[in-house]
């Protein structure tokens, strides 16, 4: 019972690629002004913008990573959705979108310029631009590595007489060229349309996997019984044991979870990251823009069943991992299964097991979804499952690329390099930025393949930058006294606080360095505090950064000149007219929609407590 790809699997992938590029070609003739290219001419219906809103975030890293966390921590991983993302999405739709959309800003940094000043915008634009190109490079690298580890393309590549490195090259170049192609042609509209297409494909690819897995273990109750039998009772509960850090698999107590993950990290991401906010800004009206994140929240709250559940199923599958595709390929070694379908980490080239410091093999949780695909899917639908993986990767990458070309063109090039040029020039620049943004991403992917630690370090730095940002926006939108100097120094000190916090503390069992504790290590001392898990440390670091930014922004603002009220109309809550929605039926009103979303999320938390 071995699987290797058949003609039908390749055919499914090819048809998908043809559609993705076809959408770009079909949209090219509508790209006449820079606003068409960067903001879809503000013409996207709410449901399309909403699906793109979550799809842009649903990169391969999210799909692979959430299943990996599911296998490692259990259903508690859903906190990322039911405590984190959903409340934040309701907040951005109800309270923040009126300022983003109403100010007619083209980007999040541009809003910062309108509300605060030029230097706050510059700081945000530059860090954000760097972050997006590197993020897309990192996800490209992750995808290419995954394709290599699956050994699915070994046969055709080896048959051509090429070395296995070519799988990596081909995966990166091919996917980059396709994403570049459709964004270059159709701009944000093309990215958004493809994200909606990719959203449906991701669901179509992973849903049958979950259904087969559930059928195999005997439904939710069967899964629960199996995990209980393995001594993993907590894996099917989200809230049991959250009273204390030591009694739950996440290693964090409820306060750190709700404040760190829920309030700081999730609100920070969903409310201020231009990658997602851009989708709502492209909506066709203020009401649509406000509805975008709320519509997005409806499918989003069920994502745990699509991306986290496969991780739980992967460890609970009754039969041990059957020899899958890997074993059937000449020269490729198959990693032994450690736990259900989860294999041990192996070195791709030597086939040797990676061992931890006790000499035991390390489980490779990232393989949860790929292994599930190979375990349950025969050829045919296997092609669909792999296409879904490919689609998730491309939608995540296109999100980064479109956010980058907009911020580069509007907030860096037009603001500092070449102001006052014709609209045609900026449209051209947008296309050109798409090209060189992709090229830098490819460079970043190769950098990641050579120096894995550099990428870990970069992602860490991104965390420092992102954590305090939500404090700046919250004060900017709801406190008219907050000044430009306050915002700028608040952001910088928040980032600094995150770095210092990271340098002083360390997750238990880790060595000082990339994981933290590097400041205390300089003085030859141990960390100030040892967190039970990396996750707990991250949540508390975010809290420290947020509080610092919040306090410093208020303090500096009180000693500096605020902007006059008349300049802040439409940018601050107290000085902006409330959107008129009296003519809409109740279910069309953002507030009603938001309450429905929150009630459903509360019910999910309760059902899986």
């Amino acid at each position, binding site marked *: *019972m071995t*699987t290797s790809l058949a003609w*039908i699997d390749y*055919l*499914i992938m090819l*048809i*998908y690629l043809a*559609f993705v590029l*076809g*959408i770009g070609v*079909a*949209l090219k003739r*509508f790209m006449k002004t820079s606003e068409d290219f960067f903001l*879809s*001419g503000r*013409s*996207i219906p709410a449901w*399309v913008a909403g699906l793109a809103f979550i799809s842009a975030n649903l990169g391969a890293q999210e799909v692979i990573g959430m299943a990996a966390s599911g296998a490692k921590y259990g259903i508690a991983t859903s906190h990322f959705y039911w405590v984190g993302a959903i409340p934040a999405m309701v907040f951005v739709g109800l309270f923040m979108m009126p300022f983003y959309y109403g100010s007619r800003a083209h980007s999040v940094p541009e809003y910062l310029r309108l509300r605060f000043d030029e230097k706050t915008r510059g700081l945000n634009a530059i860090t954000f631009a760097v972050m997006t190109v590197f993020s897309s490079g990192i996800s490209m690298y992750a995808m290419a590595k995954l394709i290599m580890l699956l050994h699915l393309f070994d046969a055709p590549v080896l048959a051509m007489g090429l070395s296995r490195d070519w799988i990596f090259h081909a995966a990166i170049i091919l996917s980059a060229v396709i994403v570049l192609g459709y964004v270059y042609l159709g701009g944000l*509209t093309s990215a958004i*349309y493809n994200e*909606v*297409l990719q959203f*449906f*494909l991701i669901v*179509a690819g992973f849903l*049958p996997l979950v259904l*087969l897995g559930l*059928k*195999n273990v005997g439904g939710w109750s069967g899964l629960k019984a199996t995990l209980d039998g393995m001594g993993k009772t907590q894996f099917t509960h989200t809230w049991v044991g959250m009273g204390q850090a030591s009694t739950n698999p996440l290693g964090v107590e409820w306060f750190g979870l709700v404040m760190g993950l829920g309030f700081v990290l999730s609100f920070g991401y969903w409310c201020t990251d231009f990658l997602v906010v851009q989708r709502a800004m492209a909506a*066709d009206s203020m009401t649509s823009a406000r509805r975008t994140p709320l519509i997005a929240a409806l499918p989003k709250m069920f994502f745990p069943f699509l991306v986290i559940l496969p991780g739980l199923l992967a460890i609970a599958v009754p039969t041990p991992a*059957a020899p899958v595709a890997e074993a059937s390929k000449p020269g490729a070694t198959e990693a032994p299964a450690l736990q259900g379908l989860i294999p041990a980490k192996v070195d791709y080239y030597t086939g040797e097991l990676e061992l931890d410091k006790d000499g035991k093999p390390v489980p490779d949780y990232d393989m949860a979804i790929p292994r599930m695909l190979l*375990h*349950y*899917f*025969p*050829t*045919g*639908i296997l092609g*669909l499952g792999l296409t879904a993986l490919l689609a998730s990767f491309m939608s995540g990458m296109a999100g980064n690329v479109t956010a980058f070309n907009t911020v580069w063109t509007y907030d860096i090039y037009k603001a500092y390099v070449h102001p006052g040029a014709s609209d045609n020039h900026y449209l051209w620049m947008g296309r050109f930025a798409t090209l060189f943004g992709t090229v830098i991403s490819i460079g970043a992917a190769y950098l990641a393949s050579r120096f894995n630690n550099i990428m870990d370090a970069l992602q860490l730095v991104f965390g420092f930058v992102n954590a305090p940002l939500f404090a700046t926006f919250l004060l900017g939108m709801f406190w008219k006294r907050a000044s430009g100097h306050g915002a700028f120094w608040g952001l910088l000190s928040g980032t600094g606080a995150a770095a210092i916090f990271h340098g002083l503390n360390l997750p238990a069992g880790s060595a000082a360095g990339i994981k933290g504790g590097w400041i205390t290590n300089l003085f030859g001392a141990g960390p100030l505090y040892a967190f039970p898990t990396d996750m707990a440390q991250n949540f508390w670091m975010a809290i420290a950064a947020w509080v610092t930014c919040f306090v410093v922004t208020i303090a500096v603002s009180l000693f500096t000149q605020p902007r006059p009220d008349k300049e802040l109309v439409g940018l601050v809550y107290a000085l902006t007219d409330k959107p008129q929605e009296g003519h809409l039926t109740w279910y069309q009103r953002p507030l009603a929609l938001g309450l429905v979303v929150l009630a459903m999320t509360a019910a999910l938390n309760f059902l899986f407590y």
Partner: protein
Amino acid sequence: MNLDIRLPIGLLFAILGGLLIVYGLWTQFSDPNMYDRSLGLNINLWWGLVMSLFGTFMTWLGRKGATEKPQQAH
């Protein structure tokens, strides 16, 4: 934008669904053992049916939207 996204989505799902149905029917006779891994269920055939139904529905919505649009104010 003059392209209704429901049309390409509907078409893609109809084509992929149809492909899976044909492949599922064919393998049902030529190689039924390949469905051991999907718990004896001909997943190609059944999921192909689901996808093509969804694809047809989306195409119908997209075409309906395309004919109704010219009459609408926005």
